[in-house]
């Protein structure tokens, strides 16, 4: 009995150990070493890279990444909630509607980002259409700004919000809303007082699934932000390419991991939906 269970756990455990724990351990070692003259790492061991993470410049970038990820998550909640509610109440068509949410997600992330660039450019579809309708003369600068980045992130991660929300809402008894209505609550009241609190676990799970990838995103800010901005993901990527500063890159990566762990821990402690 226990032997079989251990046997079943063994492959996952060894993959997690070898391809997840050990690599992070290596980063930990790198983060405590010194940058070589032309990149790479070498002794002596120092805490210098860790101190640099606390530099206001980099803390500012972390702050900005939190802000962007936070706004994106919030928009995902605002868009994801009605959608999940709609799907959970659509009876036999549920699966079809759910697949429709997933369909864009099944395409390449790059393709999706690329589609937005195609739409938002000065000579892109939106500007061309608005111009030919005579609504604007000069193209609107839609691409290469914060909003384009947030748009790309929302678009990319919305399904991650809808899915857990849907599974929470689906389990709710529709009679609850009716009861609230029968007791004289206006629809907006029953929404705010009954439905929203009850779907909190789904929102929390979705928020984690959206917030964390947004926090570490690096392709979207790069492509849609036009290199005008820098977020943690790009900062990390830069350390391993342009700057060739592995110790510092490792330190930021691990700092980011620590933040992620704290968030995950809070989620588990609040007895919300466990991710697994």
């Amino acid at each position, binding site marked *: 009995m226990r032997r079989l269970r251990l046997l079943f756990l063994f492959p996952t455990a060894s993959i997690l150990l070898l391809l997840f724990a050990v690599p992070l351990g290596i980063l930990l070692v790198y983060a405590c070493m010194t940058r070589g*003259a032309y990149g790479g790492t070498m002794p002596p061991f120092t805490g210098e890279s860790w101190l640099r993470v606390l530099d206001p410049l980099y803390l500012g970038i972390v702050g900005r990444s939190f802000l962007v990820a936070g706004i994106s998550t919030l928009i995902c909640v605002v868009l994801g909630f009605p959608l999940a509610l709609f799907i959970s109440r659509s009876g036999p068509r549920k699966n079809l509607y759910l697949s429709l949410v997933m369909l864009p997600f099944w395409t390449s992330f790059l393709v999706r980002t690329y589609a937005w660039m195609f739409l938002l450019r000065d000579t892109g579809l939106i500007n061309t259409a608005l111009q030919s309708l005579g609504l604007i003369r000069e*193209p609107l600068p839609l691409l290469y700004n914060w909003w384009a980045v947030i748009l790309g992130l929302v678009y990319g991660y919305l399904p991650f919000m809808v899915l857990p929300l849907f599974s929470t809402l689906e389990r709710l008894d529709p009679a609850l809303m009716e009861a609230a209505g029968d007791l004289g609550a206006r629809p907006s009241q029953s929404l705010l007082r009954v439905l929203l609190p009850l779907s909190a676990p789904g929102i929390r799970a979705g928020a984690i699934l959206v917030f964390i990838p947004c926090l570490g995103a690096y392709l979207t800010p790069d492509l849609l932000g036009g290199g005008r901005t*820098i977020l943690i993901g790009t900062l990390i990527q830069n350390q*391993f*390419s342009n700057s060739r500063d592995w110790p510092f890159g490792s330190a930021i990566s691990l700092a980011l991991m620590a933040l992620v762990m704290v968030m995950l821990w809070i989620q588990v402690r609040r007895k919300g939906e466990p991710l697994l």
Partner: protein
Amino acid sequence: MISRRKTLFFLGLTGVAGCSRANRLRLNVFNWSNYVGENTLPAFEAETGIRVRYAIYESNEEMLARVMTGNSGWDVVFPSNYFIGPMREMELLAPLDHSRLGQLGNLDSIFQKPEWDRNLHWSMPYMWGSSGILFNTKSGPSPRTWAELWTSRFQGRMTMLDDPAEVFGAALKKLGRSLNASSERDLRAALQEALRQKPLLRAYLNAEVRDQIVAGDIAACQTWATTAQQAIDAAPHLHYVYPLEGYALYADCAALLRESRRADLAHQFLDYLLRADVAAGIVTYSRTATANAAARTRIPAAISSLKTLYPDSETLARGEWFAPLAAQAQRLRDRLWTELKSA
């Protein structure tokens, strides 16, 4: 290849992908996009029986990230001149054997003893170019200086390259200093300039800008001469300018990776690229600037007369070659770059 075969076997997939090629000699070449002709590789394969696995990259960083592990599988790469020193220090490169590169003499005299690799011990100059200003002539008279990219003339419709060396380099040139100035004072002055310019910019773009300036999204940009030439070929109303304050020159050089166990084939390939007719064929197709002097006479005049690729000697004298920065300065520049991006 062997390890790949083993892996596939291990996965029970033998015969699925490409194993029939295993017996042929092969060489893995990683190069910039648009850097060989249509027939360059097929002709080499037909002549030698070596199969060339060829892939392309768009930036030095991309290439370096891929070969940094020292076990990437690539044999020949084409770093820019200022990446040769760092890559050598990282022990990624193997020395070239000149006895197997009989046609090294074909190179232009300025590439025979370049400052970044005096004896061509580690690298073989292949293509070269500059970073200048590409602009749309429909938007008015030609800018002549970097300083004009600091005025409101192209506000919101211009881009700079997404590279600290290029942006700070242009700023330093605007200030009348050396491209490679690396004192803290110089770099901080460059940052101040770049910060002043940032609100005027649409974005920091590399290769992506080509299509945007052709389509008309962008009116002026800092870009590389080769990219500029491709844009001009697509849209003749574009014009490339070598700024009066001076500008950056770079050379992309072939180098042999230390991890390569196919040094023989690699040298054979490099010597093939050095041939005047081969180099001329490449340039005719790709419209780039070759480091091969012997090829210059065989290039159609329509190409060798392109000022974008082959500036006259007076213009060329204003150019300055990129040099790698010392570790301390590099670190400072990266930090200032982050400051610029965060602003």
